[in-house]
C-alpha cells in the first residue's frame, strides 16, 4: 500500500465533537489544518470505493484503503483514545455484491478493536439475504481473529474454478469458496468477510502507526508512559529513547519504571536504552545497585549492555561484591566489564 496516496481526514472528536482536523496527506505530513466548530463526523460523506472492473485484487485493496476516512477520538481528559472510521465499500471486483457500510475501531497503534453497524446498515449474504444473529456473531469472531487464514489469501484466490461452484458456496457472484478458508468466513459472505477483515487488520495499521508518530509530543509520552496498555508504554519508551533522550524529565520517567515490578517492561528498557544514556554516571548509579534483585535474564541483559561501555570504578567495585552468587557466564561478562575502559 502506498501511504503517500492515502487521503485522510482527522477529526478531533471530543465528547462534544467540536474540532475537526482535515489533512490532505500527500507527503505523509499534515498539510492543511482546518478548525471547524460544531462539525460532527456525520457531515463527512462516506466515500464509496469504485474499483476498476478487472483490476487485480491488490489494486482493489489499495483503492479501498485510499478512501478511508480516519477519525481520532479523544477521551474526556482530551487524550487520544482510539481511531474510528465509517467505511462504505464495495466488497467484490465486479460490483455485483451489495456495498457494505460499517464502522471499524482501532487502538492508537493500529490494532483492531471492534466494529459497529451504523444505523440503518446491515450486512448481507448471497442474493442479498441479511445476516442473522448467528452470522453477526461469527462475523465478530472472524474480525477478532488477528491471525485468520484470510491474511494469506488475495482476492483472486477466493474464486475456485467455475465448474466447482455451488449455490451454497457463492457470495453473490460465481466462484467456489476454497476449502481452506471455510472456517474463516460467514457462509455466503466470503467477499464481505475478506474485505472487512483486511481493512481491519492489514490495510490501515501502518497508516495509523504513521499517524500516531505525528501525535508524538511530550504530553502524549507522559500520558502513555504510565498507561495501563503495555504496548502504549513500550511505544512511549521507544520514542523517548529515540527522540527525547535529552529530556531529563522524560528519561527519568522511564527509569522510574525500572523501580517497578514490571519485569517485561524493565527488560524492554534495558534492551532499548541507548548507549549514550547507559554511559551516564547517574544512570549507572541507578541501575547497578538493583542488579541483585533482577531476574537472571535481566542480569544478563544488563551485563551484556555494559560489556563494551565504560563503567565507573564504583560500579566495578560493586560487581566484585556480586561475584559469589554468579555463574560462569556472568563471571565472564564481569571480566569484560572490569577490563573495559
Amino acid at each position: 500500500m502506498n501511504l503517500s496516496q492515502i487521503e485522510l481526514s482527522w477529526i478531533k472528536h471530543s465528547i462534544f465533537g467540536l474540532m475537526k482536523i482535515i489533512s490532505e496527506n500527500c507527503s505523509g505530513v499534515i498539510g492543511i489544518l482546518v478548525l471547524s466548530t460544531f462539525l460532527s463526523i456525520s457531515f463527512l460523506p462516506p466515500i464509496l470505493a469504485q474499483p476498476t472492473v478487472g483490476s487485480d485484487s491488490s489494486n482493489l485493496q489499495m483503492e479501498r484503503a485510499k478512501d478511508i476516512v480516519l477519525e481520532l477520538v479523544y477521551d474526556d481528559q482530551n487524550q487520544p483514545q482510539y481511531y474510528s472510521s465509517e467505511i462504505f465499500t464495495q466488497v467484490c471486483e465486479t460490483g455485483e455484491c451489495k456495498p457494505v457500510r460499517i464502522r471499524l475501531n482501532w487502538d492508537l497503534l493500529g490494532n483492531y478493536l471492534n466494529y459497529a453497524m451504523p444505523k440503518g446498515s446491515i450486512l448481507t449474504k448471497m442474493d442479498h439475504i441479511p445476516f442473522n444473529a448467528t452470522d453477526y456473531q461469527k462475523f465478530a469472531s472472524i474480525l477478532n481473529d488477528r491471525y485468520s487464514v484470510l491474511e494469506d489469501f488475495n482476492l483472486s484466490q477466493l474464486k475456485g474454478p467455475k465448474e466447482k461452484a455451488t449455490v451454497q458456496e457463492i457470495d453473490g457472484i460465481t466462484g467456489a469458496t476454497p476449502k481452506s478458508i471455510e472456517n474463516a468466513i460467514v457462509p455466503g459472505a466470503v467477499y464481505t468477510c475478506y474485505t472487512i477483515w483486511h481493512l481491519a487488520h492489514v490495510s490501515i495499521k501502518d497508516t495509523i502507526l504513521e499517524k500516531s508518530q505525528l501525535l508524538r509530543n511530550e504530553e502524549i509520552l507522559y500520558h502513555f508512559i504510565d498507561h495501563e496498555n503495555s504496548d502504549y508504554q513500550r511505544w512511549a519508551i521507544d520514542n523517548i529513547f529515540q527522540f527525547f533522550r535529552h529530556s531529563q524529565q522524560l528519561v527519568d520517567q522511564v527509569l522510574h519504571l525500572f523501580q517497578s515490578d514490571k519485569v517485561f517492561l524493565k527488560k524492554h528498557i534495558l534492551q532499548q536504552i541507548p548507549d549514550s544514556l547507559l554511559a551516564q554516571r547517574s544512570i549507572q548509579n541507578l541501575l547497578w545497585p538493583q542488579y541483585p534483585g533482577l531476574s537472571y535474564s535481566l542480569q544478563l541483559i544488563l551485563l551484556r549492555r555494559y560489556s563494551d561501555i565504560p563503567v565507573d570504578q564504583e560500579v566495578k567495585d560493586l560487581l566484585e561484591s556480586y561475584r559469589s552468587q554468579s555463574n560462569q557466564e556472568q563471571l565472564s561478562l564481569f571480566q569484560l566489564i572490569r577490563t573495559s575502559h
Partner: protein
Amino acid sequence: MRLYLSSLYFILWQLPLFAQDQILIEAESFEEKGGWLIDQQFFDIMGSSYLLAHGLGTPVGDAITKLKVAEGGDYHVWVRTKDWAPFPVGPGKFSLLIGDVYEKSFGATGQTGWQWYDGGLVKLQNQTEVGFILKDFTGFDGRCDAIYLTRDHTFKPPHDQGVLHNWRKELLGLGRVPKDAGIFDLVVIGGGMAGTCTALSAARQGLKVALVQNRPVLGGNNSSEIRVHLMGRTDQNDFPVLGRIVHELDNGDPGNANPDGKRYGDERKEQIVRLQPNLSLYLNLHAYAVETEGNEIRTVIARNIETNEELRFPARLFADCTGDGTIGYLAGADYRMGRESKAETGETYAPDEADDFTLGTSNLWHTSIQDSPTSFPETAWALTFSDEYYLDTDKADWQWETGYGNFNTITQAEEIRDHNFRAIYGNWSFLKNNKSDKYGHHKLDWVAHIGGKRESRRLMGDYILNQNDCTGEIERQPDGFVTATWTIDLHFPDPENQKYFEGEEFFAATKHIRVAPYNIPYRCLYSRNIGNLFMAGRNISTTHVAFGSTRVMKTCGMMGELVGFAAGLAIQHNTSPRGVYENHLNELTSMVSGVKYSRP
C-alpha cells in the same frame, strides 16, 4: 536386576583389564529407582539414557544399587550430570552416597551441558558389598547419567561424544557384535501410532515382524506418557480398509493432557500387539545404529534403556517410524529438515527463503484441586512471569510448545524439554504465589517428562507431497491411498508470547488452513535412496507445509497400515518398496480396496 548384577560382575571379573581399578555404573541401571525416572530421549545426542528426579518440586525417593568391590583402595569418584537450568544455578541438586563413607552433592553448579564432575576420593574395602544412593533434594529434575570410580587419580573420563561412546561401550562390555533378536521380514522401529499400525498390518500379511520401541509403553504421542489425542478422520477414506487398525487402537478421545492416563489406552495397544501372531514386541529398546550393505540396511542395533544390553535385528525390510527419521538418517537416507522456499516448492504457504524453522515440542501438564491450600516454591531459575504476562490456566493444551527454529528439535531436544519445564514451573510458581485466590488449592499433578515432538527430519521418498497435493491443485496420484483430512496446521509462536519471550517462546498459535480430503501417495512412504526402507508417521516424504497436514496420528496410523500391506507384497514378490509401486500397484490397490486381486 539379577541380570544387571551379573553384568556388573561381568565387568568386574571378566574384564580384568578394568575390573581391578575402575567401575562404571550407569544410573539408569540402578537396582531400585526410587522415584527417579529413566529418560532415554536424548540418547542420540548424549549417548546414554539417564535418571531424572521428576518430582514436580517434591524430592523423589532414593535410587539405590549395590555392587561388590573386587579390590579395595582409594577410588577417584566422577559423576556425569548436568545443571539443567544454570540461571544462575539450577534446582537439580542431588547427592551421591557411597556406603557410609562418602557423600557429595552434584547437579547445581551453574555450568552448562553434560559434564563429568570430580567427586573427590572414596576409600573402598576389598571384597565388600557397597551401596550407592542417589538422593534427590528438590524434585526439580536433577539428573544423573553415570558414576565412574577409578584408582587412576590422573585419569579424567572422556567428554568428547565419540570417544565417550566407545569408552562407555568398552566398560559395559558391549564391544562385541550383539546377539541377534531373530530373523525378521520386517523390523519396525518406533512404537507410536504409525509404528504400531505398521507392525500389526504387516504381521497380518503373514510377515515375521519385530516392533522396537524405546519406551515401556506403546502409543508415542498418544501414550499416557505424552497424552495427545488422536486427530485426523478415518470416516472420509477413499479406501476404507485403511483405518481399521487405527480404530482397534483408538481408546476414545480423552483430549490433551487428561488427568487419567489410562484413557490413552496403553494397555489396549500393548494387548493387541501381544496377541498378534508373527509379531514380536521389544519395549525399552532404543535403536541407535544400523549396519548397511550397498544401499540397503541389513541390521538395526538397539540398546536397552535400563540394562544397556544390546540386540541386533536383521531383516529384509525396515520401517522407520521413529518420528525423527533416525534409522534413515543413520543409513544415509536423503532427508530434509526445516522449511523449503516458495521458489522451490511452489507453495503459497512456504516462506520466501528456506530456513530451519520447525514446529516444536510440547510437555503437557495438568493440576487438581485439593481440599486444603497447597504451596509451590519460588523458582528463580525458571522463566519469570509477572502481572504483565502470565498464562492463567490450570492445565496445558497443545499451545505449550517450544521449538520454532529457536532450538534444533534433534540436537537440542533436551534444551527444548527443559525450556518447557522452565516455562511450566515458572508460570505455575507465579500463579501459586501471586494468584492464590484462584490457585491456592490447586496442585501440580503431572508434567510430562517425555516431550511430544511434532517435527524434525522428513525422509525423502520417490514422491514429495506438497501443499498443492493437499489442496487439490495437483491431480490425485494413482498411488494416493491414505486419505488425510487435517488442516494444514503450521504452528508459530503466539505473538503475545513472542512479545515477552522473543527468541525463547514457549506458547504457540496456528492457522487452520482447511484441505479437501486428499490422498497421500504410497511413494511418500519409502526412501528414495535406501532400497529397503519404508517410513510412516511424521517423518514421511513431504514438504514442511504438507507435513502440517499429514502429521496427525490417525493419518500416521493409516500410513502404517498401508506400509504393512506393501511390505507383505514386497516379501511375497521378493521385491523392494519401490518395486511394489512399479510392478504391483494394482495388487496394492486391490488390497486397500478390500477386493480380491485378479491377475490380469
